[in-house]
C-alpha cells in the first residue's frame, strides 16, 4: 500500500508533499508508485479538490473521509480551520493503475499488468499493509486514516505557530517531515 500526503493551501498550492509506503505486516515504508505517479498523484489530488469544496458544506466533521477514487487510488481529506487541506492518496496496488493508457490486461488481476513490471517490491504490494490494502474503503481504514490525520494536524499546528511561518508558505522543516513519517508508520 502506497501513500502520498499532500498539504494544499488556500490557493490550490502544495505546501508539503510526501510519498511513503505502509510499514505494517512487513512493508518497508517505501512507496511503490510508478514513475508516472510523480505527476499523476498531483493531478489526482488537484482534481479531488473539487469534491472537497462540495463535501465540506455537507459534513460537520473536519475529517471528510474518502472523497474520491480514480482507478484504484483513493483520496481522503482532512480540512483545517484555515482552509488548508490534508489530502492522503492511497493506492493498494500502484502497479495496476494505468492512468490514461488503455489497459490491455483485465482490470481485476492485480499481480500482472500491462508492461509486466518486475520491479523489486512489486510482488509485496498485496502483502504489505495487508489490512488496509485489502479493504481500502472500510470503517477500519477510515479510523486509521483519521488517527493519522489528527496526528499530522497536531504537528501542523506547531508548525504554523512558528512566528516566521507565513500563510501559504511551503513547509520545509525536516522535523515536520520526520513527525509525519512517524505518524504514518504508527497508523498506516
Amino acid at each position: 500500500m502506497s501513500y502520498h500526503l499532500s498539504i494544499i493551501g488556500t490557493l490550490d498550492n502544495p505546501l508539503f508533499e510526501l510519498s511513503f509506503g505502509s510499514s505494517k505486516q512487513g512493508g518497508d515504508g517505501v512507496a511503490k508508485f510508478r514513475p508516472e505517479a510523480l505527476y499523476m498523484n498531483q493531478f489526482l489530488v488537484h482534481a479531488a479538490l473539487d469534491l472537497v469544496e462540495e463535501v465540506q458544506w455537507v459534513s460537520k466533521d473536519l475529517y471528510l473521509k474518502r472523497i474520491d477514487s480514480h482507478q484504484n487510488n483513493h483520496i481522503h481529506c482532512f480540512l483545517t480551520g484555515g482552509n488548508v487541506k490534508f489530502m492522503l492518496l492511497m493506492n493498494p496496488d500502484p502497479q495496476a493503475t494505468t492512468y490514461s493508457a488503455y489497459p490491455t490486461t483485465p482490470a481485476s488481476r492485480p499481480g500482472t499488468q500491462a508492461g509486466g513490471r518486475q520491479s523489486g517490491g512489486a510482488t509485496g504490494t498485496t502483502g504489505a499493509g495487508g489490512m488496509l490494502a485489502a479493504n481500502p474503503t472500510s470503517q477500519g481504514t477510515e479510523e486509521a486514516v483519521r488517527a493519522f490525520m489528527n496526528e499530522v494536524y497536531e504537528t501542523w499546528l506547531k508548525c504554523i505557530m512558528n512566528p516566521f511561518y507565513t500563510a501559504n508558505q511551503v513547509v520545509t522543516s525536516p522535523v515536520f517531515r520526520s513527525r509525519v513519517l512517524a505518524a504514518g508508520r504508527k497508523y498506516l
Partner: protein
Amino acid sequence: MPPTLDDPLQSPQESDSEQPVAVRKTRHGKSPLDSVASLPYRRSNASLSTLFASTTSLPLQSGTPSESGTVTPTAGAINGSVFSPGASSALRSSSPAPSAQSVANSETRDIIQRAFSPHVSILASQDTEELVRHKGIHGGLLEILRPFGERVQGKVTIRDSSGVSRSWEDYGIRFTGVRDGLESPRLSDRKSTDSGGSSARNGQRTSMVDYKPARLRSGGDVPLVEELVERHLTFAEEQSGPVDADYLTHIDGQPTDARVPSPFYTLYLRRLLSGLPMVPSETFSHPVASVIAISSRSANPIEELRNLFHSSNQGEHRLPQWVHNEFLRYYVLVHDEDFDDITKSMSLFDQMKRHFGLHCHLLRLRSTQCLPSDDGAVKLPQCEWTAAAEELAEIVRRETSEDDDNTTPCIFETDANAIRAFVREMVTQSIVPSMERASATWNDQVASRRRGLSGRFMSLSKRFTPFGGRNASVPLGGAGSNYDSLQGFYRPDAPEAVMRKLADYGMMLRDYKLAQGTYEILCQDFKNDKAWRYYAGANETAAVSSLLAVSAVSPRVRVEGIDQYLETAYYSYITRVGAPYSALRTLMLGIELLRIRGGASLDDAARWSTRVLDDRLVGPVGHVLFMERIASCFTERKGVGGVGGSSGDRTRKAAFWYMLAADAWLRLEKTSQAEKCLHEAARLYRLDDGEMGLRFDGMRDFLRALRHAVKVNRNGPQHLDGVDLLADDDDDDERTLVEPLQEESEQLGPRSPVFGHRKSLSIAAAAHPAPLQTQFADPLGAVPNAYEGTDDVVPAMLSPHGVDAASSTPVVERKDPRDDGFE
C-alpha cells in the same frame, strides 16, 4: 456487487476479435510511418473524402442537395479538421444563435430517437432486381431505397396511445434485407442459424440478390466500430491543416465547442446503434412491414407476388420462429418508364389493389442507366445508418480500387422524387397507421389487463398455479411460464412477447410513456421467468424510455429509477448473458440521455462513463473518446453557486480528464485531437496565467511536455506527405537511443522525470546526432532546429514517459509508439 469481469466480458465472438484489434494498435517498436506505410497507400481521392464526410467539417461536400443524410451542418462544421479554410469558416460563422450546448443535446437526443426506427424488409423479385441493376445500382432495390427511407419527406403525424397527435420532422424508417441482422458481420464466427443445409443455395441466391452480403449490414460488433472510427480519425489526421497559420485560425473556433460532442464520438454512437442485430429479446430490428416488389417486366405478376409472399411466410425467406410473422405486407409494382407500357401497368396495379387490398404502390422508375453528366442526375445519397462492417468494407474497397473517380451511382431526379413520394405514402398511409392499430389492439387485449391492481396479481398467479397462464404453458420453463428456457425465447404469441412488441412499437412511434409503463411490467415478468436476456433488455429500454419520456426541460422527474434500471441491465448483460455489446449500448444511451438532463445527472453520467472505462467495454479508441466525453460532462457541471461560491463546480476534474484524454490521444498518435484536448486542459488549469496559474510543479511540467509533444508532432506521424513515405526509420538506433538515456536518467534521481531527461539528452545528443534525425520523421525538417537548443523546453522532447522504459522491455515496446512521435 461488482461482477467479475474477466471472462464474461469476452463473449465468444469478442474474445478472438479483441486480440487482433489490440495487437494492431500497439505497433511494437516501429516508427509510426512504418505502420502507416504497411497499409495500402491511401489516395485521398474525392470518393474517399465523401465516405469520411460525416466527420470532416464539410458535410455537404458530397454535393447532394437536401437528402445528404449526414450530420447537421452546424455541429459538423464546428468540429473536425479544416478541410478547406474558406468554406468552413463561412459555415462556422453561419451557425445559428442557439448555444452549442443545446445543439449538442438535441443532436445526441435526435440520434437516439432516430435509432429506434421501424425496420421494413425488402423482398424483390428477380426481374425487379435486374431492372435496378440495369440502372447501374448493383445492390438492387434495397440499395436504391435505403437512403430515401432514412428521412421521410415532410412531417409525419403519429397518434399515441392517449390519443394525442404529434408530428415529427425527422421521422424515418430503415429498409433492410430480409435476413439482415441475423448473422454476425465477422466471417470467422458466422453461425448459420437455421437452414444450414440450404445455406449454400441461399448464399448463392442472396449473392445474386444482394450486392453486399446481409451479414455486413448487421451491427452489434464493438471492435468493428472501433476500427471504423479509427479509420476516420486517421483520415482526419492526414487531412489536418499542415501549417501554423491554419492552426491559429483553427484555434479561434475552439473555446465554445467543448460541449459539442466530437464528430467521432457521434459516429461511434451512431454506428453502435446501426444495424441492430436481430435477437429474440428485442424486436426493434424485427420487420414491422415487408415490401414485396415485382416489376412490370414480369410474366405472371400475381403469381410472382403470391410466391414471394409464400416464401416470406413459410419459405426460404422466413424469419426465425421467435419473430412475429404477422406483419404488414406492402406490395409494390415497379414500372419501367422507358420500356414498358403505362396502361398495362396501371391495369395490373388495379388488379393488385383488388387482390391485396390498399397497401400497394406503383413506383415509376426509369430503367436506363444514369450518367453523372446527364440532365437532372443526382447522386444516390449516402446512408446515415449503415453498419460499421458495411462502411469499413466500402472504405477498404475505395482505397484499394484503382480508379479515382467517384463510384457512387447516379439516379434521375424523377426517380428520386418518385421514391421519396413512395416512402412518404407508405409511411404515412400504411406503416404508421398499421403500427398504431396494432399497438392499440395489443394494448387493449394484453397490456391493459396487466395494469391496475388485478394485473399485478396476475404474474403471481401465474407462478403459483400449476396449470396457470392463459396459454398452454411450455413445461420446461417452470410452472405457468411461457418462456422456453432451453432455446431462450418466448413464442411470439405469448403475452410477454406481445407486450415486448407493444413496448417496442411505442418506442418506434415515439410514445415513450406507453413504452416505459409496459417495460416496467415486463421487467417483473421476465425476472420471474428468469429470462435473463429479456430481463436485461427490458431494463435497458425502461431506462431509455423514461429518460426520453421527460422532456429536456422539466427537472427531476423519476431519476431514482434510472440508476437501478441501468445497473440491473448492465449486471445482467455482463454476468448472466455475456453480451458486452448490449451492455455498452445500455450505458452509452444512459450516459447520453443523463447528460441532457444536466445538473446532478451529469455526475451520474460521468460515473457511468468511468464504469465503462474501468470495465473495458470499449477498445482504445472508445477509451479516449469516453475520456473526452467525461471531461465535457464535468465542464458542463456548474455548481449551484450557493453557500461557498462555486460548490459543485468541477473545473479541476474537467481539466484532469482533458489532460488524460490528450495523453491518450498522443498514444494513439492522433495529434490534432490531442491538441484540442490539451488546449482545453491548459485553459482550465490556467497554465499560462502566471499569477493564478498552477502551483504544482509536476503538473505544470507534464502539461508543458505534452504541449511540446503536440507541437512537435503536429505535422507528424500520420500526416502524409510524399517525403514521409520515403524516409526510412531505423528503429534499432532508436532503441539504442532510449537505452543510454534510461541509465542516465536513473542516476539523476526520481524527483522530476522531465528534468532528468533534459540533462541526459544533452549528453546523448552529442553522441547520436545522426540517428536522431531520422527518428523524427518530420517532413518539414524541424529536427535540426530542435536540437540547436533554441528554447529550454525543447530538450525535454523525449517522452515524459521515457523513464518508464527503464523497467522492462515489454514496457519499452508499449511506449515506443509514443516515443517515436517525440523523437
